[in-house]
């Protein structure tokens, strides 16, 4: 580590954090410098968020020293951290849905006199802040009415509303589309220009290479190395992070593309659902991966929900050429559709239950007879799927909520593989997942396709869509703009469809 003591604003030495018997952070070192973006890189569960929560005063460190401007620093509350010039944008959305944007941004710091809130000043101040940051949000809107991406922007505004010298951003782009991410990158640029230090966490390598000045890699709660961006490469970073070499993020397809003579398993014609999406038609063949690209809010998730019986629709859905009426998810599952939803914590997992319960939950019929669960069969099938997907866990009795994000995602996948779906819908399957786990998920998707599963993969990450799909469907503003074979598409062409410029 190069010693440039003058501009080091924050430095961590031998920081350790345990939760009872669980060691989340073993030994962490970090030097953060003024006017630079310092990225923390590590697999899911490496301890990045935990470290940031220590800095933000949400949790105390178990051991170790933190020096802020050379003086020991151990914030006991988020307010104390804020007072010392630390601002944080949390990974998990920490907003109150029932309150307005302004009320959330200035939560617990409302302009008041003798405890009486001035609503006028509150809105003014929030509006000023949002305008300065250049965010397209109405501060009077209720957070619960906003889309996930907009909520993420509110979270960012909330974090940046403190006048801080160190700004921590924990996966701020995980649910942003490129347009919104660009706004954020501009904000980060302005912060560093003003001499502030930024600690940045993300799993998107392209973005890391573009933004960072320094990069610190963590593995299993321990410090691995700190590198200057200019001295390293994506491949080198990945190798440090996962502890092995990885040549290709997108594994090659296994076997041949299904030919035009193969009959589609799923055909969708003129599907509409109010204003959620309009006149969507497409089809998927067995063994094919159909990518669904679009900016956040394009309406892709709602199309998928309709296909899964979670949303009313007009139009026709055919499976194996026969028209079906998908009234509810159980109907969809009966017809062989599986759906990995975009929000694994809310719609995917029962966090307080074991992996076994989660893996078998959509296919209980297969592990029971006469309504009675077969313990043995259940355990066996759950083990099978868990091993097949390489879920990293001590046992299938582990509680799902204690797994890292990538592993949780694999559990959701395992749940759907148990149903032996013919059509598998994946909505943002790698959101918030580290590169190593991403690769494994891609490998699984390839494997499934090779076995003849028709796959619909919704994603907002262009490289992922282009790297994996046989064909790509592009949606913009609730309409399907184009469907084309991967070979006919360039990133520029896809983006022009997605932004609605190319008709």
């Amino acid at each position, binding site marked *: 580590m190069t010693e440039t003591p003058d501009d080091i604003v924050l430095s961590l030495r031998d920081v350790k954090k345990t939760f009872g018997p669980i060691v989340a952070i073993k030994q962490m070192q970090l030097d953060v410098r003024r006017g630079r973006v310092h990225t923390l890189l590590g697999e899911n569960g490496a301890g990045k968020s935990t470290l940031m929560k220590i800095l933000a005063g*949400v949790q105390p460190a178990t051991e170790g020293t933190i020096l802020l401007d050379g003086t020991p620093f151990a914030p006991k*509350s988020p307010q104390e951290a804020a007072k010392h010039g630390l601002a944080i944008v949390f990974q998990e959305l*920490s*907003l*109150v849905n029932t309150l307005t944007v302004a*009320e959330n941004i200035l*939560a617990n710091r409302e302009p008041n006199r003798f*405890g009486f809130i001035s609503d*006028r000043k509150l809105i003014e101040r929030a509006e000023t802040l949002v305008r300065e940051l250049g965010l397209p949000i109405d501060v009077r809107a*209720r957070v619960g009415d906003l889309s996930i991406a907009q909520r993420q922007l509110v979270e960012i505004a909330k974090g940046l509303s403190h006048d801080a010298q160190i700004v921590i951003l924990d996966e701020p782009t995980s649910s942003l589309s490129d347009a919104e991410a660009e706004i954020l990158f501009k904000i980060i640029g302005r912060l560093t220009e003003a001499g502030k230090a930024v600690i940045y966490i993300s799993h998107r390598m392209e973005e890391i290479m573009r933004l960072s000045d320094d990069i610190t890699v963590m593995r299993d709660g321990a410090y691995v190395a700190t590198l200057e961006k200019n001295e390293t490469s994506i491949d080198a970073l990945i190798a440090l992070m996962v502890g092995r070499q990885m040549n290709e993020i997108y594994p090659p397809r296994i076997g041949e593309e299904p030919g035009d003579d193969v009959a589609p398993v799923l055909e969708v014609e003129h599907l509409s659902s109010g204003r959620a999406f309009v006149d969507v038609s497409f089809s998927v063949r067995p063994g094919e991966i159909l990518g669904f690209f679009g900016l956040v809010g394009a309406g892709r998730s709602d199309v998928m929900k309709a296909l899964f019986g979670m949303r009313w629709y007009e139009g026709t859905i055919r499976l194996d050429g026969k028209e079906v009426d998908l009234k509810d998810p159980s109907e969809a599952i009966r017809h062989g559709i599986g759906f990995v939803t975009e929000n694994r914590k809310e719609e995917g997992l029962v966090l307080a239950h074991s992996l076994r319960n989660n893996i078998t939950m959509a296919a209980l019929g297969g592990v029971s007879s006469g309504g009675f669960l077969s313990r043995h069969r259940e355990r066996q099938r759950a083990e099978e799927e868990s091993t097949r997907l390489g879920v990293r866990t001590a046992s299938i009795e582990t509680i799902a909520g204690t797994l890292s994000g990538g592993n949780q995602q694999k559990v959701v996948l395992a749940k759907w593989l148990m149903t032996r779906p013919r059509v598998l819908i994946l909505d943002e399957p790698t959101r918030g997942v580290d590169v190593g786990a991403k690769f494994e998920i891609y490998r699984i998707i390839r494997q499934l396709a090779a076995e003849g599963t028709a796959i619909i993969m919704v994603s907002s990450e262009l490289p992922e869509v282009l790297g994996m799909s046989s064909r790509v469907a592009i949606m913009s503003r609730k309409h399907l703009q184009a469907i084309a074979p991967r070979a006919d598409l360039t990133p520029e062409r896809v983006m022009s469809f997605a932004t609605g410029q190319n008709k």
Partner: protein
Amino acid sequence: MTETTVYKADPMATLKTMMRQYGGIFLALVVLCVIFSLANPRFMSVANLMNILQQVAVIAIAAFGMTWVILLGEIDLSVGSIIAVAGMVGAQVIGLGWGFVPALMLTLVSGILMGALNGVLTAKLLLPSFIVTVATMSIFRGMVSLPTNGAPAMIMDPTWTAIGAKSFIGVPIIIWIVIGLFIANHILLSKTTFGRKTYLTGGNREAALYSGIKVDRMKILIFMISGLMASISGILLSSRLYSAQTNAGMSYELDAIAAAVLGGTSLSGGTGSMIGTLIGALIIGALNNGMNMLSVPYFYQLIVKGLVILLAVWLDVRSKRRKV
């Protein structure tokens, strides 16, 4: 998810929001009043309306306290027992000859302390408030009977009994107290940082913690408010009855909860308002009074009361859903 809590300065907007926000439940109240007036014209007389307000005072005030607790996502089932203890504390202190003001003070303090006990057990021992307050409901109910061995205690203090019996500019003192407490609670909830913290904590505990709100302290304070409100209810009830009854306030907690929920306070926390609770309490009061006026037999009253609660909540849920 679908309810709104909007803070606007513009009075017209406020009125509009109110109609939008309380439309369903407000409508239910109006419909109820119209039906009762048609059936018995005396229902709408000034005397009877004051009657209703007086009768509903005890529930309404307890419901104000309950609204805070529910907004935080908690519940307080000990309210009915606190009402009884408060009356008994007042009666005993007066019985000692210490006079009105000490009796009043000690009664309020006893309510606050009982609330603080609920709050500390919930916040510090991390027990669910439902079970904590089921337990303290039993404990407080047992305690109330200790001084008199279960007998009611007469209250002879003229100031104490005046609260329930006298009027001020033609309006019973009890009604002034309800109005005063409503305004105080409403302002504290909707205009101050403390109220905002309550919404934040009830809406998302994690988020509140991250924003530096001392969630534990909020819990304790809010159970103290509930205890305080219940003890005021207890004072009113005992002054209306000229005595402290050991079975006073029995199952009033359910009426208080019903008033708050009728008024749109969500049991999962984070949404609700004092205005809603007041309307909810008025519905319950108008219902009881109106059915007595119509000589509806007791058992049918129970049935009708249940049906009206269902209808009102359904109207409310429906009107809120339509907006989205």
